[in-house]
């Protein structure tokens, strides 16, 4: 029976490169997919494209392709990635130029786009934004991008037309993995059982090392071998959609039922209803069976008919965040840190700094959990962090400044003050009609 092997080349925009190279060289792969586009990344990429129309693709594209291009060509592994971000067309130009420089011939590169729906937002003014619960037209801040999560269509079309490398803008993460399965096995895209199975394949692979022992270790309870050489996952998929998850023999990490269970539940809500552009996947009856060292068999995923809508991520200029930190140590350190926080709050008030929200953390005490019921032991050291959300850069700047001036104006023994200010591009989500979106594909060949 025909089997297809797909590797996961990256789980996020800045992920390690060596695991991908190891997979291409030693994984006996047919495909490798790189997921590199977080929710907000595309809005930031859109800003870069506005400054320079040739930019707006993943900043590590050249770094990755420098090694991936010759290796994938040598081992006949097809590459699929969303590193195109806001500008897949330019990414394709860059890849072709690199291929030419490396003397690689007979390469077909495709850009999949059509996800940019910024010019279609007008008709959705009254649509409810999930985060605010209010209509889109009430969103407070300049909208700079709107990208819809597309499904597999464009990628499958590119594969049918012989593309070796496919660079997309925004598509659903599982689509990067489901598309080659649909193409290779000739799956009917209306067979939602298969779409559900392939979606789980993608879901388990899309976060790279998180399926192979990354983000998992708990010394003494969940030990993982050689995380510094963590191998990324491979799915070996059969025509009926069932598959195993494994990794390259000898690589670091571990694949067992615990690692894949953690990853299956990662970022899903109702396991029986996982909305994607290609189906509503149902993972509620999935089983994992360990078939050997680092081999887990996956069965039981299914799916239902896709919905009429697609999710859009809207990037908008939201606010500024200003922050400052300073450390205190030794006897009485927490009391001094609390006094320092009081001083900063009063200073911001006296100097009429305007903020929408202020947050005080005592790092080492309550910066993560904020549990008001908890009794803490007296710490040996504590780091004060003050952060505030503001409308203006000036106000944000004052937050860090007022922490820094604690050096000479605050309690005794404050040290290691740092400050930062960031302009925040936030993401708002809503649904639009599927019929408003059409995947487009263009090709470029290196002969």
């Amino acid at each position, binding site marked *: 029976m025909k089997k297809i092997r797909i590797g996961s080349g990256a789980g996020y925009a800045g992920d390690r490169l060596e695991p991908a190279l190891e997979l291409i060289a030693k994984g006996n792969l047919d495909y490798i997919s790189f997921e590199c586009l977080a*929710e*907000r990344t595309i809005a930031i990429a859109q800003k870069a494209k506005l400054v320079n129309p040739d930019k707006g693709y993943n900043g590590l594209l050249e770094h990755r392709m420098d090694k991936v291009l010759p290796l994938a060509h040598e081992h006949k592994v097809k590459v699929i990635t969303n590193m195109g971000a806001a500008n897949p067309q330019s990414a394709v130009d860059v890849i072709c130029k690199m291929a030419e420089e490396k003397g690689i011939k007979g390469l077909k590169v495709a850009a999949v786009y059509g996800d940019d729906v910024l010019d279609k937002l007008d008709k959705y003014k009254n649509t409810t934004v*999930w*985060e605010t619960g209010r209509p889109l037209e009430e969103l407070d801040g300049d909208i700079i991008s709107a990208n819809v999560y597309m499904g597999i269509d464009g990628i499958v079309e590119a594969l049918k037309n012989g593309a070796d490398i496919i660079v997309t803008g925004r598509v659903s993460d599982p689509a990067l993995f489901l598309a080659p399965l649909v193409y290779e096995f000739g799956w009917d895209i209306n067979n939602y059982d298969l779409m559900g199975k392939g979606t789980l394949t993608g879901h388990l692979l899309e976060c790279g090392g998180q399926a192979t022992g990354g*983000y*998992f270790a*708990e010394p003494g*309870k*969940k030990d993982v071998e050689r995380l510094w050489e963590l191998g990324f996952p491979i799915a070996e998929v059969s025509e009926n959609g069932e598959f195993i998850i494994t990794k390259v023999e000898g690589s670091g990490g571990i694949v067992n*039922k*615990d690692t894949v*269970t*953690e*990853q*299956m*539940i*990662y*970022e*899903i*809500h*109702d*396991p*029986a209803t996982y909305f994607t552009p290609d189906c509503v996947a149902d993972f*509620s*009856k*999935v*089983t*994992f069976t360990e078939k050997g060292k680092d081999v887990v068999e996956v069965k039981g995923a299914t799916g239902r008919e896709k919905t009429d809508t697609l999710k859009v991520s809207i990037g908008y200029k*939201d*606010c500024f*965040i200003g*922050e400052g930190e300073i450390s205190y140590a030794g006897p009485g350190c927490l009391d001094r840190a609390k006094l320092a926080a009081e001083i900063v709050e009063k200073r911001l008030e006296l100097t009429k700094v305007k903020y929408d*929200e*202020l*947050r005080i*953390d005592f*790092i080492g005490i309550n*910066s*993560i*959990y*904020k*549990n*008001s019921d908890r009794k803490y032991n007296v710490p040996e050291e504590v780091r004060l*962090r003050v*952060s*505030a*959300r503001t409308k203006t850069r000036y106000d944000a700047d004052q937050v860090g400044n007022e922490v820094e001036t604690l050096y000479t104006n605050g309690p005794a023994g404050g040290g290691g003050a740092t400050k930062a200010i960031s302009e*925040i*591009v*936030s*993401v708002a*989500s809503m649904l639009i009609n599927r019929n408003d979106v059409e995947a487009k594909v263009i090709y470029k060949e290196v002969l």
Partner: protein
Amino acid sequence: MKLWEIAHSRTGDKGNISNVSLIAYDVKNYELIKEKVTPEVVKEWFKDIVKGEVKRYELPQLGALNFVMYDALGGGVTRSLALDKHGKSLSSYLLDIEI
């Protein structure tokens, strides 16, 4: 006994919603965990962080529960003032529950 002794966990985020899995190392402890760790217990445990409701989904064949916590991430990853904007560390905090 702390949940940490018998279960493991991973947190995911989507917008302002956090989901925290709770997975029994040994599936025979699943019923005990399911009985003790109700959505109400989790909501109370995270009361200073989670402003919305907590829903629980069950995956008995995997010995796993999934808690979905609404209005839980200070406005969402992109605009939260928290150090841990994704709420990644909430998984470890869940395992601190005494049963």
